[in-house]
């Protein structure tokens, strides 16, 4: 049941712009209500989950999304901002029509505390929100090697201001300057993304800017290109990308623009005109606040995405600990299984015993070409895990480039519209 204390109710009305006009506290003593599901995070996983909860649950369920930002900038396609094919405003989504279309309560704040006993969240805006079921879809946080200024050494791995910062730095490069990026150890958000970025930037510098003397260096924490190895390997050769696998970043200096790393047992320091360090990643902080992590990620039951550590709390998207990739498309996919599972549970229906999810993505490799990668994941009852039942990849081609926007267009609409 949704229990809102009188202060937070008034605050909510103020939020709606009604507080100064009328304060109404209803006088009722009957005792029936409808379940309240609170979704923390309005990205691909969270926004999809809230939408499908309302689409399938209708007026028999109340759904609130708690999201820090009033505008979401999609990381998907954001590498195309770097080469000028898209802008961050092209990739921006707001929640106004989305929330009114589906009847979702939007609250723009963050969670300070999770009281699992009383099923209450305390928000940074001071309000308290009660939940019957809690869905956490907060994405990722970074594990930086040391304290440095990300406005000087951007990660650009959460899209928006960071993406534009990196673009400005790339555009300020002169011929002969070096662009160095680091790839985090798996698992991290969007497995093809860093390789895609190296290709897009190398193509942009060489073929658009005419910087034939510039160099792109990639320091990969992984032992090899972890997805689409053939595609990205061939593009690295074509562009002359200097690729160094099995490198561990140990220090980043934002003043000298240097990165120190270990390669084959020895420490090396590399200076670069532009330094794009994508740090190692872990579940976002609310996962730790809620105490539903085991190590860096949140273990869940793949039939429902309910935490194995706390009943009534569900984790979807990049923070969850299944072997499924961490990415927007499959976050959307997981969200539907979770929404159905919550509705089944609230109505006393058994969980669907053999859910499937899928992952698909198109990766730009230049301003005119893209490749693709896809997979279906099925529930394996013996191991109680999601396993890849079919994966495939498509080589980089100009034919794939426009298809990339069909894919992203429907994915964006299925999530935010």
């Amino acid at each position, binding site marked *: *049941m949704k229990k809102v204390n009188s202060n937070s109710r008034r605050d909510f009305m103020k939020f709606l712009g009604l507080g100064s006009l009328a304060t109404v506290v*209803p006088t009722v003593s009957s005792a029936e*209500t409808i379940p309240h599901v609170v979704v923390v995070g309005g990205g691909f996983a969270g926004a999809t989950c809230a939408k499908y909860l309302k689409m399938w649950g209708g007026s028999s369920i109340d759904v609130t999304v708690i999201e820090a930002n009033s505008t979401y900038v999609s990381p998907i396609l954001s590498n195309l901002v770097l080469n000028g094919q898209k802008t961050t405003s092209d990739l921006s989504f707001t929640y106004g029509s989305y929330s009114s279309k589906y009847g979702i309560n939007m609250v723009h704040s963050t969670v300070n505390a999770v009281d699992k006993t009383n099923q209450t969240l305390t928000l940074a805006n001071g309000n308290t929100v009660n939940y019957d079921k809690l869905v956490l879809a907060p994405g990722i946080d970074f594990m930086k090697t040391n304290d440095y200024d990300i406005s000087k050494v951007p990660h650009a791995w959460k899209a928006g201001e960071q993406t534009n910062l990196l673009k400005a730095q790339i555009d300020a490069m002169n011929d002969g300057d070096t662009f160095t990026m680091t790839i985090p150890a798996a698992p991290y958000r969007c497995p093809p993304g860093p390789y895609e970025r190296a290709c897009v930037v190398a193509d942009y510098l060489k073929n658009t800017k005419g910087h034939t003397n510039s160099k792109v260096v990639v320091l990969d924490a992984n032992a090899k290109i972890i997805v689409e190895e053939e595609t990205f390997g061939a593009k690295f050769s074509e562009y002359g990308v200097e690729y160094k696998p099995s490198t561990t970043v140990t220090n980043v200096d934002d003043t000298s623009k240097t990165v120190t790393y270990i390669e084959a047992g020895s420490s090396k320091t590399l200076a670069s005109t532009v330094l794009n360090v994508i740090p190692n990643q872990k579940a976002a902080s609310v996962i730790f606040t809620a105490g539903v992590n085991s190590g860096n990620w949140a273990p869940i039951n793949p039939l429902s995405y309910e935490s194995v550590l706390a009943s009534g709390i569900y984790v979807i998207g990049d923070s969850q600990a299944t072997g499924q990739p961490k990415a927007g498309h499959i976050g959307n996919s997981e969200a539907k299984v979770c929404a159905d599972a919550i*509705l*089944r549970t*609230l109505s006393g229906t058994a969980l669907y015993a053999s859910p499937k999810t899928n992952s698909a993505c198109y990766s730009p490799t230049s301003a005119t070409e893209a490749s693709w990668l*896809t997979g279906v994941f099925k529930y394996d009852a013996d191991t109680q895990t999601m396993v890849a039942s*079919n994966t495939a990849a498509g080589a980089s081609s100009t034919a794939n480039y426009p298809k990339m926007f069909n894919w992203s267009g429907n994915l964006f609409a299925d999530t935010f519209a």
Partner: protein
Amino acid sequence: MKVHNKLFLTGYSLSLCLALVGCGGGSSSTTVEDTNTSIATILPLSYTADAGRLLGSQCAQCHGTNGVSVNSWDSIAGENDLADEIFDDEPIMTAQAHGYTAEEITLIGNWLKTLSKTED
């Protein structure tokens, strides 16, 4: 004090009405005092689980919510011959199709047939 959802929504709707009345009538503020409410119980949720819909919702990432595409990729709402189409399509579609059993494809196909066709 705990107020459950139905009350919350009622209060919200009521406040909207009063706010409008308040403006029209020149009154700047209206306050209704609180009284005690009892602890609420959750109403049983009305939900009809549908395996075909759950599986078929996984098509929406590429083909649109409820099978209605927003661009030139195929809308699949009202699709009548799903099994034939998905195995003889773009490689990315065929790769996906091989990840599903014949029974699952039948479930998805039966659900898609219930959706309004938006284009031929």
